[in-house]
């Protein structure tokens, strides 16, 4: 985020279009590169949520599964806020992926797909 973006935000103006372009591109490229359709991604999202829900109580509304891309590597990122574990305790720091706990201690993050170059036909 640049100084201009912050000022625009404070003034409730539309952000400069370059940042919008960047964000839209990153999203569309993640999909282009993975060759996954939104339907398939949605199905996968629901199944992942089901599996996780067997072990911990999660907020089904808030859960997000998305494709993120950086340096031509695409990762499937699931961000699933945990309400509580099924035995009633919230003990995230031990049970959950430790990498990112300092950023989002109340959420579970799991990077599923290791990485994959885009596979054009």
């Amino acid at each position, binding site marked *: *985020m*640049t*100084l*201009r*973006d*912050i*000022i625009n935000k404070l003034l409730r103006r539309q952000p*400069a*279009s*370059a*940042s919008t*372009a*960047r964000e*839209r*591109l*990153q999203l*569309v*490229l993640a999909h*282009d*590169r993975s060759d996954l359709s939104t339907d398939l991604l949605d199905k996968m999202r629901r199944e992942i949520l089901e599996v996780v829900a067997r072990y911990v109580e999660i907020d089904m509304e808030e859960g997000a599964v998305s494709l993120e891309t950086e*340096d*031509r590597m695409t990762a499937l990122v699931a961000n699933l806020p945990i309400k509580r574990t099924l035995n009633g305790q919230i003990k995230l720091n031990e049970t959950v992926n430790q990498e990112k706990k300092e950023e989002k201690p109340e959420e579970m993050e799991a990077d599923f797909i290791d990485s994959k*170059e*885009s*596979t*054009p036909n």
Partner: protein
Amino acid sequence: MASDTRVILICSGKGGVGKTTLTANLGISLARQGKTTAVLDADFGLRNLDLLLGLENRIVYTAQEVLEEECRLDQALVKHKQESNLSLLPAGNPRMLDWLKPDDMQRIVEMLSDQFKYVLIDCPAGVEDGFKNAMYASKEAIVVTNPEVSAVRDADRVIGLLNTNGIKPVQLVLNRVRPKMMANQEMLSINDVKDILALPLLGLVLEDEQVIVSTNRGEPLTLNSTNAPAAKCYLNIARRLEGEDIPLIDPAKEISGFGAKFKRLMQTKIF
């Protein structure tokens, strides 16, 4: 085949981003640096390289007659009037698309490689057979793109294909850069494009009205208007291809006058 010949595919995916203009100007620049250079118009459907080089009236034979062995390669090659190191192999009839195979393209490139230090292939837009034929015959590639979402997206698709086919190095040229729009953050920045496509940047080319003037005349900018902003960019790209270490221009420094400093300040990344 002379193994040290550099066979470079100039491609973009999207049409109209400046492949042909880059090919013409790189051809002139490399020739001027004393390198024997052939530019091959692989866009058989919509050929234009001859027009940009001002050689359209001097075409007798094309790649088609060479492949059909109706003429020798040197009969089809059109030598540039001012830069004798540069030759064009014109694209044949659009009907060539029906029968041209990757092998044919490879044969042509091999013939050219015997005589030239550089073979620049002006690739057709798209990712279909025309592109693929040209790609199979190439060793390395330059991907041209503009700082616009559609051009970057298409470039990404092409880069994926080049990677899976083992073409390397693949380098990026960012064309039609508008420093003012970038300063106002109304255009994807150099770093945005570089990061998204994850390619080394071979150069950037400033948007320049003189490019149109030069195409009107059929004289690439690098031929006679070497002071034009875009001409300098093209010349730098050619020198970098030759391994010279020339720093990239900073678009922020290209804008002057009131407010330039302020705009630079506004671009400061906070987080």
